[in-house]
């Protein structure tokens, strides 16, 4: 007969993010450890609130599963005397294995005859095994940061207040973190502060619901969403959509009690982003929109208590928000007493990185880097005008009080202050775009001038830090260089400029010339390599296999090119013609390696038909244009199938991109028959040097269009 298990770790209030992470870890760890001792449950459900992490495991077997493991003992010569009687060594081995001497077996191995014991383990009652196992969960539950309290030596995320451990009706004697487990849980801190009896583990969530606790995280989140929307709706308002806020608020409470409050409409003079930052980040209030979509001077706060007089809480919410908005307006007005260019002067006082100067030094490098990048990507006249006007003001908002107080508004405030002082919108957008994207899933710069600035800014940082030898090692990336490179790659893929990665690195690095930090060619190669590593990581995330990634990355000059080649090659791999294609490539590439042509020269131009001595040579040459146009057609199909786009999460698997392979593939494969005939009938490595060179050039001319598809040598195998 199987039973259900409940284990609850009651705590002082957990950080909101750990409510989710901690309960998942607890479920996984419990499952893993129960499985390991042969007590694997049939299902595990986790529950979590700010004051508890809990897990209910159903179908826990009565006893742990029996397992027989074989243990090897001493050699037979040692275990038995001449008369075949067991020696003391055999007795010791049997006793340490928990079996009788009589049950020991002798067996011949390739290293001689040895003694074996069949050790039976498991079969213990679940109730005997679980207490220690559950105690280890408290000690071993992973968390990024744990704390100690009082004189308890087992650290946890916040102090452990109680433990509940039940196997059906039975309370298990678990002891951990200075607390002994009981059979009852506890209700809401204020609304049901006492112990709450649980009839059986399966009734855990229902018992808590009676005690003002919604123990299921998803249910609580949904209840919060619905309650906030309903209250806002009653005033003709709609909550701003913000899933992260909803999750956070849901994990700050055990039961939602929404309260609608208002603030003075005077504060609506502040930019929306500021209002949102104050309400969301600082107060965890839901901002509300009016029917016309504009922000209303109202909000919903979600209380964790059912109070007798809601007006008391509302007044508190309103007062504290008013204080913060007052501050924000103070900054908004004070910051605008100086122009952005005056703020830019203050960047000399803000350090960027030791040995790389101040933020002012950085932005002046970025200004010249951005111009070089603009040249490389052939930036339009209008965008260039915006860029040139923006660069002297870039990151000037770092010196404002608003950004000091609300760092997450960097860029957004640059845009707001630029517009407020009458800068044209494209300039304001460029200033904002230059610091985008902020996180791996955050939006990209909205304009091309902003994208150029963003690329120059990130490359400046990568080049500078690599020159100082501060590249990331292993998982450590203290300066966030991987994040910067990831953002860079996203911008490049979304813009689809034709400038190659090394060209852009070179352009951004030029500003370091003559400066205090030596940037040599090796550093630039490393930076480009680092950027390609991020591209490879992205291709991996998007479902491509390692060989395809290598072929795509090594065969491309641009980020978007690598994405397109990745999609194309993974499609080609699935076709029937792929084997022929690779055979074609391998046969030609084998000898073509010995061809020494000029760099950048298409070997087809080096083929001299007057030196042909056979029909096969002529036939192969005649087939070359079809091959070249086949490769061109395939690449064009990849271009058409995959326009410039943000390749971050949610962009979909590259393996699913529909690339039209015909007629390109057939054209390419039309090279195969003439190539085979050529290699079978013509001595490529002729004695005569001129002949040999011409014949090698012909092979290289076959490889050339194939190589445009990617570094195919990684796929030939």
């Amino acid at each position: 007969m199987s039973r259900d298990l409940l284990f609850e770790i009651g705590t002082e209030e957990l950080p909101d993010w750990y409510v989710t992470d901690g309960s998942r870890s607890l479920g996984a760890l419990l499952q893993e450890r129960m499985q390991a001792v042969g007590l694997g449950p049939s299902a595990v459900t986790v529950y979590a609130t700010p004051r508890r992490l809990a897990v209910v495991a159903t179908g826990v077997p009565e006893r742990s599963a029996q397992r027989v493991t074989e243990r090897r003992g001493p050699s037979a010569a040692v275990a038995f005397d001449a008369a075949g009687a067991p020696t003391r060594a055999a007795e010791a081995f049997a006793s340490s294995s928990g079996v009788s001497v009589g049950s020991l077996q002798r067996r011949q191995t390739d290293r001689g005859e040895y003694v074996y014991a069949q050790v039976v383990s498991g079969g213990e009652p679940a109730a005997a095994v679980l207490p220690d196992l559950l105690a280890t969960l408290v000690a071993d539950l992973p968390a990024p940061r744990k704390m100690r309290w009082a004189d308890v030596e087992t650290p946890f995320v916040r102090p452990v207040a109680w433990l509940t451990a039940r196997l059906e009706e039975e309370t298990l004697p678990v002891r951990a973190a200075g607390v002994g487990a009981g059979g009852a849980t506890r209700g809401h801190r204020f609304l049901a502060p006492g112990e709450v009896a649980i009839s059986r583990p399966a009734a855990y969530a229902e018992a808590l619901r009676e005690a003002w606790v919604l123990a299921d995280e998803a249910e609580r989140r949904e209840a919060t969403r619905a309650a906030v929307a309903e209250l806002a709706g009653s005033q003709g308002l709609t909550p701003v959509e913000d899933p992260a806020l909803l999750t956070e608020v849901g994990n700050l409470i055990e039961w939602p009690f929404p309260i609608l409050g208002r603030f003075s409409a005077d504060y609506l003079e502040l930019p929306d982003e500021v209002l949102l930052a104050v309400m969301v980040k600082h107060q965890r209030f839901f901002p509300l929109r009016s029917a016309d979509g504009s922000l209303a001077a109202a909000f919903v706060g979600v209380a964790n208590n059912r109070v007798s007089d809601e007006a008391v809480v509302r007044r508190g919410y309103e007062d504290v928000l008013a204080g913060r908005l007052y501050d924000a307006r103070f900054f908004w007005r004070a910051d605008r007493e100086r122009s952005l260019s005056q703020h830019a002067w203050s960047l000399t006082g803000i350090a960027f990185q030791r040995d790389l100067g101040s933020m002012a030094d950085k932005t002046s490098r970025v200004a010249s880097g951005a111009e070089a990048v603009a040249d490389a990507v052939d930036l339009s006249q209008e965008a260039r005008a915006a860029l040139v006007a923006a660069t002297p003001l870039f990151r000037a908002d770092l010196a404002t009080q608003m950004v000091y107080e609300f760092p997450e508004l960097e860029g957004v405030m640059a845009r707001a202050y630029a517009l407020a002082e009458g800068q044209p919108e494209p300039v304001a957008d460029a200033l904002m775009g230059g610091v985008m994207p902020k996180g791996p899933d955050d939006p990209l710069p909205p304009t091309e001038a902003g994208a150029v600035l963003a690329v120059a800014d990130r490359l400046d940082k990568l080049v500078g830090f690599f020159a100082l030898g501060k590249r990331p090692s292993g998982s450590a990336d203290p300066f966030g260089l991987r994040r910067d490179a990831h953002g860079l790659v996203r911008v490049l893929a979304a813009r689809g400029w034709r400038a190659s990665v090394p060209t852009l690195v070179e352009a951004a690095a030029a500003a370091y010339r003559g400066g205090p930090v030596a940037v040599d060619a090796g550093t630039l190669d490393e930076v480009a390599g680092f950027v390609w590593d991020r591209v490879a990581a992205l291709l991996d995330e998007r479902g491509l296999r390692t060989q395809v990634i290598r072929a795509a990355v090594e065969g491309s000059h641009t980020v978007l090119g690598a994405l397109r080649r990745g999609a194309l090659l993974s499609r080609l791999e699935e076709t029937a013609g792929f084997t022929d294609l690779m055979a074609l490539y391998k046969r030609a590439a084998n000898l073509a390696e010995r061809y020494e042509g000029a760099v950048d020269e298409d070997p087809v131009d080096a083929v001299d038909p007057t030196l042909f001595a056979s029909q096969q040579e002529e036939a192969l040459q005649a087939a070359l244009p079809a091959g070249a146009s086949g490769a061109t057609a395939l690449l064009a199909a990849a271009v058409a199938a995959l326009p410039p786009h943000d390749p971050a999460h949610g962009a979909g698997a590259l393996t699913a991109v529909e690339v039209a392979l015909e007629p390109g593939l057939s054209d390419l494969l039309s090279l195969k028959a003439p190539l085979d005939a050529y290699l079978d009938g013509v001595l490529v490595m002729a004695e005569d040097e001129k002949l040999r060179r011409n014949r090698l050039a012909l092979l290289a001319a076959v490889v050339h269009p194939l190589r445009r598809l990617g570094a195919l040598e990684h796929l030939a195998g």
Partner: protein
Amino acid sequence: MLLQEIVFTLDRFWSDRGCVIAPPHDTEVGAGTFYPTTFLRSLGPDPWRVAGLAPSRRPVDGRYGANPYRFQYFYQYQVVLKPSPKDVQQVYLESLGALGIDFRDHDMRFVEDNWESPTLGAWGLGWEVWMDGMEITQFTYFQQVGGLDCRPVSVELTYGLERIGMYLQGVSHAFDLRMSRDVTLGELRREFEVQHSRYNFEASDPELQRELFDRYEAEARRLLEEGLHQPAYEFVMKSSHAFNLLDARGVLSHAERQAYVQRVRRLAEASARAHVAPREPAMEGA
């Protein structure tokens, strides 16, 4: 309840729970955590309970008295309990009850707060306590102080007295708080606040503060070498305040700022080590 009655009430409440009610320390500090009765006494194994008014100065927070909540000089009420009691959250909520705040009538929250004082080499985990969205207390389990692990762990409660008073008296600016029957906090502190805001932001002499910092630092170091860690720590507090004045004046680059923080921290850690060190050799010698 008058602002000073809030202090009396908390004094009485914590006195009843075995705390020493220590008078405010007479050196400028950025927070009650700097008090020797917190910083030094939270180190080592001996149980310790202390509470009391802790006036603090944060020059950079000055708003010329215009902001209802922010001041460069303000009152904290500081409680330190070592080891941290198991029911400390509940006891804390009851202390609000003593002030006439029934926590059942409010939206009380314990919101994650990772506290760190780089100048003191101290960090801890705990919460901001929110009452109806307003932060009224910082609640911290010290993990390290002066670079040393806390064993056992102390818990520090820092009440924001002005905020609690504003709620209790129903006023929307701290200066409207009644301190005594006849005197408001504004009468007591407005002139002080306005002038000091001007001093901190506009009129202080950065060269003097730089020089004072250097001298305080040298003095602290000399005293540590003399085995006088208590007076040395006084100079750590003074150097920290000189740094805070320089910071408010806006004359420090990011890098310079970091360097000053490191210098204070080294002294604070040396003081902490000196405070813990003597007992062991002394006992061995005995």
